[in-house]
């Protein structure tokens, strides 16, 4: 994936910025231009408003991946999951900070801002969300979404710094 192609979706992948249809209140991630839920799609045109996901959710399904996607070769085996977010949308992402034997359907998780992969072709490191087990009593991680402006700036600097020449 080229630098520009990844960069375009950075606000979504860093901050979980989706949107919500003000006609029927359905939340979408990633954001959509029209609402597929509204019977008459035109009703929703111009009525989609920004909406940021909390990053909280639970495991809907999971798998331990042994044959990696491009750029994930160094991470095998890794847990990939579908996460049912509190706000509704299902997200695809890795589960980290836990032994894979402990992952189960229904487990509470929280989005964390992490390095996703090293892109061999474009020569950049991609950052975005992964999921880690939700700590019960306020053990909220500093890196949990939504991420701070400082974290964004640091990530952007690192991304540029590692671009191959």
């Amino acid at each position, binding site marked *: 994936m080229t630098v520009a192609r990844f960069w375009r979706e950075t606000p979504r992948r860093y901050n979980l910025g989706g949107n919500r249809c003000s006609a029927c209140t359905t939340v979408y991630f*990633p954001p959509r231009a029209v609402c597929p839920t509204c019977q008459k799609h035109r009703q929703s045109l111009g009525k989609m408003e920004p909406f940021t996901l909390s990053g909280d959710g639970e495991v809907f*399904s999971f798998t*331990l991946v042994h044959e990696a996607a491009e750029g994930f070769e160094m991470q095998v085996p890794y847990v990939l999951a579908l996460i049912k977010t509190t706000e509704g949308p*299902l997200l695809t*992402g890795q589960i980290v900070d836990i032994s894979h034997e402990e992952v189960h359907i229904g487990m509470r998780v929280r989005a964390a801002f992490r390095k996703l992969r090293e892109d061999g072709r474009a020569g950049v490191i991609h950052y975005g969300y992964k999921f880690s087990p939700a700590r019960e009593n306020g053990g909220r991680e500093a890196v949990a979404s939504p991420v701070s402006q400082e974290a964004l700036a640091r990530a952007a600097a690192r991304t540029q710094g590692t671009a191959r020449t």
Partner: protein
Amino acid sequence: MREVAILGIGQTKFGELWDRSFREIGIEAGFAALQEAKLSSQDISALYLGNMASGSFIEQEHIAPLILDYAGLAGHHLPAIRVEAGGASGAVALHQAYLAVASGAHDFVVVGGAEKMTDVPEDVQTDIANASADQEWETVFGATLPSLWALVARRHMHDHGTRREDFARIPVMAHEMGSKNPLAHFRNKITLDQVLEGSPVADPLGVMDCAPASDGAAALVLGPLEVARKYTDTPVRIAASQVACDTLALQHRKDVTTVEATVVAAKAAFQRAKKSPKDVQVAEIHDAYSISALMALEDLGFYAKGAAAKGLSEGEVAFGGKLAINTSGGLKAQGQPFGAVGVAQVAEIVRQLRGEAKDRQVSGAKLGLTHNLGGTGATSVVHLLERAN
């Protein structure tokens, strides 16, 4: 709309065809189909070619005129049209050709499907295949096609009580039939234990749950049913041709344990043909992953959701059972040259309906079904084929 018949079929061997080029296999399949149909190239008025990713696999785009050219038809200036729909490219190409003949726009057309996958190393093959998933919201987070199907499998087990061994039966049956198919990529038989103990790809799926990358091509000649007997003694009628689509990404589906596009395409196909699933004796079902075939048995209407496992374990779905599936060996054993798959599935059903499938023959086969998927089910194509008497 007029009735459309299949007048001829052609197919190359599937497998790692290192000594053969894309254009060679494309032309071999096409000429074989024309020869069967007692038609010459001059009778053809259009070519539809299913292909998923020639640009990535062999760095060649614009392949429909290329095949037309090397078939000796460039001087006729026919329309040659490439069709891409991920793993369903072949069946969507057939659908387009079917519409062209049914509408009367063309009389005789060739439908080809071809893919040359093994010129690039295995990891590159995998990356190219993954491009039929959503690159922005799935693969960028570490998803691969097998891992997405593994997510489906795990949830299917959770929601419907399906067991690991239930879908492990599919590749065992595929290899059993592949052993009888001289065109198949794999001709060895395998056991249930080999599937269960295969090296893990994305659990619960192992290497034996996943169809291979293959080279290969297949072709069909279509024409109006009313004149079909002039060109063949054994015309096969296309009783229905239906394409349905859904969200590209698995995460946006209403229920990940159902391929809604298959449900919609199958319902429409049975309605159009005035048939029901119980009328089908033989089917080629998209087993790119073992779980995709088990789910298709449900989504096509052969079984209620969650009940396909029982049909498989009790031998109803088997060669010699109530419903024979993947007598060609399926994608798993016959092979998976993406663009050729949907066309080859139809070629196998034509052999069955003509009674030419030799030791793979399903006795009394009158109505056959094919089911071809793209990605995790964003495109699903269902064809119903019937012996024309």
